[in-house]
């Protein structure tokens, strides 16, 4: 009798069930859920890990090759800062060995006559015929030098500005810059690389105030990256009363991390910079 359901209670039960289903259904289909109009999802940003790069020498590479010879022993006469000579109908303006503008000196017109003796020609000859000039350039390469030396002067013209440069590979043999040339950027990149190789093997002890402990370890390396001598602790800071029990463990783990990380893979050309490294281990490394 106690749990017999009469007609009225049956009606109430039906109404209650329908009401609950409708209410939870409405809540579930997002009837009251607020849409997210602000789109608060963070947009992804592209990042790059600077530990991975920067292992190139930042120092300028000293060219071991001697600079190209200046072929002109005799630099031409200093030209006043006059406007460039008016263009004359010249078939070969570049190869034209013309120390003086032909316009200003019209008089030496008879001078071409000594073409017969080519020894004296270099400074003077304004020759229109190309054939004769090619002959002279082939026989006397020095005859061209006045032109190259002349265009090197600040006349405002760009012709000849790349004279003396070469695209030949450098003949230099040395690959290792001297220690003084290893720049700060290289050193910091090396330090980051050392830390990056140490990190997988480093596990900080846990405990109170353990994040204050910093242990500096001296690691001597051979040229192949292996340990030259067992790493040793050269200093520890941040020891407090609460983290004193972890301090020795911190040292021990730092040394074992250095041992496990060897051999280090570091660029051989900077051996001078990493033959002695002293990384500092803290909680995050």
């Amino acid at each position, binding site marked *: 009798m*106690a749990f017999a359901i*009469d007609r*009225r*209670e049956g*009606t*109430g*039960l039906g*109404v*209650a*069930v329908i*009401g*609950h289903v409708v209410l*939870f259904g409405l*809540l*579930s*289909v*997002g*009837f*009251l*859920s607020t849409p997210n109009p602000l789109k608060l999802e963070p947009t992804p940003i592209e990042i790059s890990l600077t530990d991975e790069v920067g292992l190139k020498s930042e120092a300028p590479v000293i060219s071991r090759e001697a600079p190209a010879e200046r072929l002109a022993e005799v630099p031409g006469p200093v030209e006043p800062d006059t406007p460039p000579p008016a263009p004359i109908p010249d078939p070969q303006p570049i190869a034209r060995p013309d120390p003086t503008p032909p316009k200003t000196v019209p008089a030496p017109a008879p001078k071409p006559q000594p073409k017969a003796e080519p020894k004296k020609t270099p400074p003077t000859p304004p020759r229109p015929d190309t054939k004769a000039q090619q002959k002279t350039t082939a026989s006397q390469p020095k005859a061209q030098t006045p032109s190259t030396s002349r265009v090197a002067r600040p006349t405002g013209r760009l012709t000849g500005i790349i004279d003396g440069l070469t695209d030949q590979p450098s003949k230099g043999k040395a690959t290792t810059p001297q220690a003084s040339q290893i720049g700060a950027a290289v050193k910091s990149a090396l330090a980051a690389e050392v830390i990056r190789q140490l990190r997988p093997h480093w596990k900080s002890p846990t405990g109170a105030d353990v994040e204050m402990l910093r242990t500096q370890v001296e690691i001597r390396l051979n040229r192949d990256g292996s340990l030259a001598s067992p790493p040793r602790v050269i200093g520890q800071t941040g020891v407090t009363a609460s983290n004193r029990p972890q301090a020795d463990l911190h040292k021990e783990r730092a040394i074992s991390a250095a041992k496990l990380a060897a051999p280090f893979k570091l660029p051989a050309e900077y051996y001078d910079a990493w033959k002695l490294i002293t990384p500092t281990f803290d909680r995050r490394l």
Partner: protein
Amino acid sequence: MDLFLNTDAAAMSPVGLFMQADWVVKAVMLGLLLASIWTWAIIISLWGRIGKARKATERFEADYRKSNDIDAFHRLHGDGDHPVARVFASGVTEWRRSTGGRTVDREGTRERLATSMGAAVAHEIDKLSDRLNILATVGSVAPFVGLFGTVWGIMRSFTAIASEQNTSLAVVAPGIAEALFATAIGLFAAIPAVIAYNRFSHGINKVEARLNRFADGFHATLSRQLDDGPAPAQPQHRGTLL
């Protein structure tokens, strides 16, 4: 408005929160949901029943005041399916039994009439307030059950933090949200139950007081009849009740 079943917990969807919960929390939620449905079923049925009892009592008393002949009134209204009619019928039945014999013990008849009608009133009130204890139980226990689900769910999300070693809010939040949903359902079931319990106990008290007043008045009428006649087989109503 697009209707789609929102099953991700982040959108405050009950279905989504339920689906992601632990089985213990799921059991708690289901139990509380059933309690809520049962509570509302009782609320609806009690509402109708108490309202009907009150209206029937008013109508019955009005009719009773107007009529002169109790026997005729009993023939007309004595088989009504509401509490007052049953109390009235029990009084009349007891009167007939007590005065039907050769000798009438007046004091004994009065006592029996009072006892009989009191018992009828108590029976009617018992029937009315049968489900009221369920409302009281749901109202007092549902918050605790919901709290149990919440505590369990939060314990579980803390173990999730410990195992993932990740304390970011994205790891913690879904578990706590689904756990708090258990408390929400508990309150959802408990609040109407408590309100209805108070309201209906008040309503049932009023119905009981009214039934008692009617029974007392009727008892007074019958008692007067006992005094009037030596052995009145048919009580005469004087219209001075209530």
